[in-house]
Structures are given as structure tokens and as C-alpha cells.
């Protein structure tokens, strides 16, 4: 079982990202859940989305989880959210930021003993340059594919193309570029 917790603002596409990941997984014979805790939250409010991934059907419906991956797609939430909640000794963090990894970790006390498990990239800048809007979910998926070794990049890109097939070609191309760039840039 792999558990993933997204930290996002409502409107940044964490739910779409979590569902897109699930869509790809569902075609591979894996089982997944994609859900969020938002309810009445308005655009811009901090919220969480979640994925569970397993080789067999998933029957645990507890919202709370002990994540294997924490994905932070809004730069400020790394500072204001409790991103290390329910941390395990193996939990990996992928954080969007314009800072270097060292700069970021030096400013967040909760990450200081976890430096070897922290990965950074600037999903906002990548999505602005590739998709043309600050939609950091697609680059975060690219980074997750790299850090988790869940898929080969090409396999994931093919899967995402199918998920996005109803969108205009320009949007599909933008997302493919965003995922690829994030895959290569996350460190």
C-alpha cells in the first residue's frame, strides 16, 4: 500500500491531480483511491487531497493516513500547513518552491532531520511556462513519478494523454511538457 497526501489550495488542481493519477493506475491493474477533504472550502483555502494505491482492492475508508509521500503544490503551505503530520521514518516530501532545497529546509524546522527525504521543484513556474497557467498539479505528478519510481516516464505520459484526451491538443501538449520538465528538474 502506498499512501499519498497532497497539500494544496482549493482551485490548484490537487483533486484533479489525485484523480488523474488514479485514472492512470486503474489502467495498469493497480487499485487506487483518490479523494479530498474540502466540503465547503472556497477557492484559495488550504485543503488536502489523498491517494491510496495497492495491488488489491482498497477497503480502508479512514480519511486520515500515514503518508509515504507528501506532495506540497502551493509554496506557502510548506510553511503554514502541518506537512509532517503523521510522518513515518520513510515519508518522502516533494515540495514546490522557488528556493533551493537547503534554503527551504533551513526555514522549516520540521524538515531539518528529514533532509534526505525532501525533494524540491518549482511547479508554479513550470506550469506557467508550459501550460500557461499556475496549475501545479501536472508538474507535481511528473516529480512523483521520478521520486517514487512508480512508472516509466513514457508509460505515464501515455496514460495521461488518454486521461486528457477530451481536452484541446494545446492543453495536452502543455501538460506533457510540464510533466516531463518536472520529472527532469525535481531534486
Amino acid at each position, binding site marked *: 500500500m502506498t499512501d499519498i497526501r497532497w497539500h494544496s489550495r482549493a482551485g490548484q488542481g490537487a483533486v484533479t491531480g489525485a484523480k488523474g493519477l488514479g485514472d492512470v493506475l486503474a489502467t495498469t491493474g493497480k487499485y487506487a483511491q483518490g479523494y479530498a477533504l474540502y466540503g465547503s472550502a472556497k477557492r484559495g483555502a488550504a485543503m488536502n487531497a489523498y491517494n491510496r494505491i495497492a495491488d488489491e482492492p482498497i*477497503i480502508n475508508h*479512514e480519511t*486520515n493516513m500515514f503518508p509515504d509521500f507528501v506532495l506540497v503544490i502551493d509554496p506557502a503551505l510548506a510553511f503554514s500547513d502541518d506537512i509532517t503530520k503523521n510522518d513515518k521514518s520513510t515519508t518522502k516530501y516533494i515540495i514546490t518552491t522557488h528556493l533551493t532545497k537547503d534554503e527551504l529546509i533551513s526555514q522549516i524546522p520540521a524538515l531539518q532531520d528529514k533532509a534526505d527525504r525532501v525533494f524540491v521543484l518549482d511547479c508554479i513556474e513550470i506550469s506557467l511556462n508550459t501550460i500557461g497557467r499556475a496549475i501545479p498539479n501536472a508538474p507535481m505528478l511528473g516529480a512523483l513519478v521520478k521520486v517514487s519510481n512508480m512508472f516509466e516516464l513514457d508509460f505515464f505520459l501515455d496514460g495521461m494523454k488518454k486521461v486528457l484526451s477530451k481536452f484541446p491538443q494545446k492543453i495536452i501538449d502543455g501538460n506533457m511538457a510540464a510533466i516531463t520538465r518536472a520529472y527532469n528538474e525535481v531534486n
Partner: protein
Amino acid sequence: MAKEFELNEMEFWDGNYAASQALRQAQVDVVAAYPITPSTPIVENYGAYQANGYVDGEFVMVESEHGAMSGCVGAAASGGRVATATSSQGFALMTEVLYQASGMRLPIVLTVVNRALASPLNVRGDHSDMYLGRDSGWINLDAFNSQEAYDLTLCAFRVGEHLDVRLPVMVHQDGFTTSHKAQNVNPLQDEVAYKFVGDYVPVDDMLDFSRPVTHGAQTEEDWHYEHKAKQHKALMDSRKVIDEVLEDFKELTGREYKRVETYMMEDAEVAIIALGSSVETSIFAAKQIREEEGLKVGVIAPRCFRPFPFDLIRDAIDMSANLKAVVCMDRSAPGGAMGALFNEVSAAAYTTKNRPLITNYIYGLGGRDFGVEEAKRIMREQKAHADAGHITTEIQQFSGVRGPRLGFFTTRRD
């Protein structure tokens, strides 16, 4: 002619989407709906299918949920296949018309995404709305995940419209936990699904001008009682048809459903009884505690909440000769009583061979998370009752509530 919708063998759907696809595949003649959180996407998706040519029927936007169910009653009495969706306050506003629909024996399908009732206002999942409608004369089926929300919605048409039943059917799923959680769903292709549901057969339809009928007539003491008695008998007798339809569905899909689901009950010493998504979390916890602590826990789950499966609940309780303690989980504010599931299960258990110790937990109100550790704690507590030979706590307790401990009534059989 409605367009065919392209579906993969494995989709990643939330419960709302799953339910809306089942409504589309059943080719409903009239959907009259007024959207409300968390069931809004069922109505929204259905409107999109209609606008994009995937549905031949009518989609009627009404001014309230009372109007929605009234529209459904009118359309069903006229002789069409009818369905809608609602939750919580919307369900409450529909309640008057729910009784009209069942009394008029109209096989409407209502997909209910369960949500708490105000006040305080809350959009999240609990079973307050399900419990509010439990005596309204509808058949109530309960889905524990989005696959089941899809499957049971298809089955609901077959059950309600069956000529030996002709009763409205609700299909419940948990607000957010099921309705907004995407998971793997294995849908049927349009043609297969429609063939399973079958063509609608009108009975005493008002649009049959060659044979005029009246629906919703007034009867006073001369006939009202006989009508209600017959209606109750129809609900009780629907058990056979429900079993048959679920059996047919299993033959078609390999997915097996029963009016009461039992898990690991063959050798269970203690059991947990729940509704909705908590059933699956309980199975998950029971498997863990069996492995980790050797505690023989089983899970019992009414798939069909109405007609209440008095028969199969008793079978489940007598399934293991070792069953000593049972806990009934009620996800609805009990309003000055024991939980409804506790009351009904206790009544059924009274005439079983095992007559286990039975306790009641109120839990998860307004969407409070029901976790694996808490489920395991409750299971261990049942084992303590079993070992002591009597109930060692209050009979009714509250799980996961802040503030001073709450508990009511103690046993007199120690």
C-alpha cells in the same frame, strides 16, 4: 436514439459519477431534480448526459426537492421510468412526498448521498437522512463504495419495477467518503446494463386513456388501513425479488450481493454491525486484529436496510456458535433513544440461539472520521464483554466525540 457512452473495462469513478452513469444506462424517462451537496454531481452529470445526447428522457429542473419528488410522482404515475437524487435537507424536504410515492406504489429510484441534518449546518456524511426515511415505505439498499453505488442503482430499477413489488427504491451511499472518493469501478457496457434493467412496464398508468385510473385518492377509516397493511406486505414480500435480482446480477457480473453481508462470521467470537463505508473499514480492521491479536472478529452489514432483514440478521448472528458479543454502530444522532440499528438488531437477536451481548455506539456524526484504530479498540471492548460474560460498559456509548465521556444505561444481567 441516445448515443452510446464509451466506457473502459476499468474506470476510476467516485460514487456520484457511478450513480449518474447507472441512471443514464437505465434510460430513465424523467429525472426531476433539485441539486444539493454532496449529491449535486449526480444531477449535474445527468444534465450533461442529456444535453450531449446520451439520454433520450426528460430532465426537469424544479424549484425545490419537494417539487422534485412531486415531479417524479407525477411522471411515474403517468407511466414512465423515473429517478432522482438528493441528500440531507433536500431529503427532509422530500419526506412528505416519499410517503405519497410509496403509498401510490410508484417504482421511483432515489439515489441518496447520505449527509448530516442541520442544525448545526453540516454538508458531510452521516446517516441522519437515511434514518429519517426508514419508515417511508421505500426499499432501502445501501452501497459501501462507488462500485456498489453503480451496481445497486442498476438493481434498484429491476427490484422496484418488478410486477410483484412496484415500490420505490432508495440507493444510499456515504456523503464524500463514497460520493467524492474515486476508486476502481468496473462498469457494464451500455447495452449489457440496459438489458439487465429491462424495458419499463407501466402499471395503471394515467396516460393510458383507454383505462382511466385515479392515483393518490383519499380513503378514510374505511380503506386506509387495508392499503397500508398491503403496502407493508409488499415490502416484506419484496425480499424474495431482491434476492432474485441480486442473484441475476451475480450471474451477469460475478459480483455477489446479499440482503445481509457477512464477513468472517463463521468462527467469530465478536461482531461489529454497521452501514455504509464503515463496513469496509471495519472489515479492514477485523482482518488486522485477527492477524495481530488473534481476536476472532466478524462483520455483519445490512445491504438492505428496508425491508429490514430480520431473517438474515438472525442467520448471521447464529452463524458462529461462539458468537458472544455484538456492537451496533449507528451513524445518526439518536434523539433521545438507543440507535435504530441497535434496536432493530437487538429485536432480531432476541429470538436467536446465540442471544449475544449487544451494545450500541453512536459514531461519525457530521462526517467525523471513523478510523481503523478506533474500530479495533471497539472490537477489543467487545472481547472484554465476551470474556466477562456481561456488558462491562454502558450499553450506549459515543465513539470519537470530544468533551466529557458519554454513556447511557448498564446491564442488569451480570
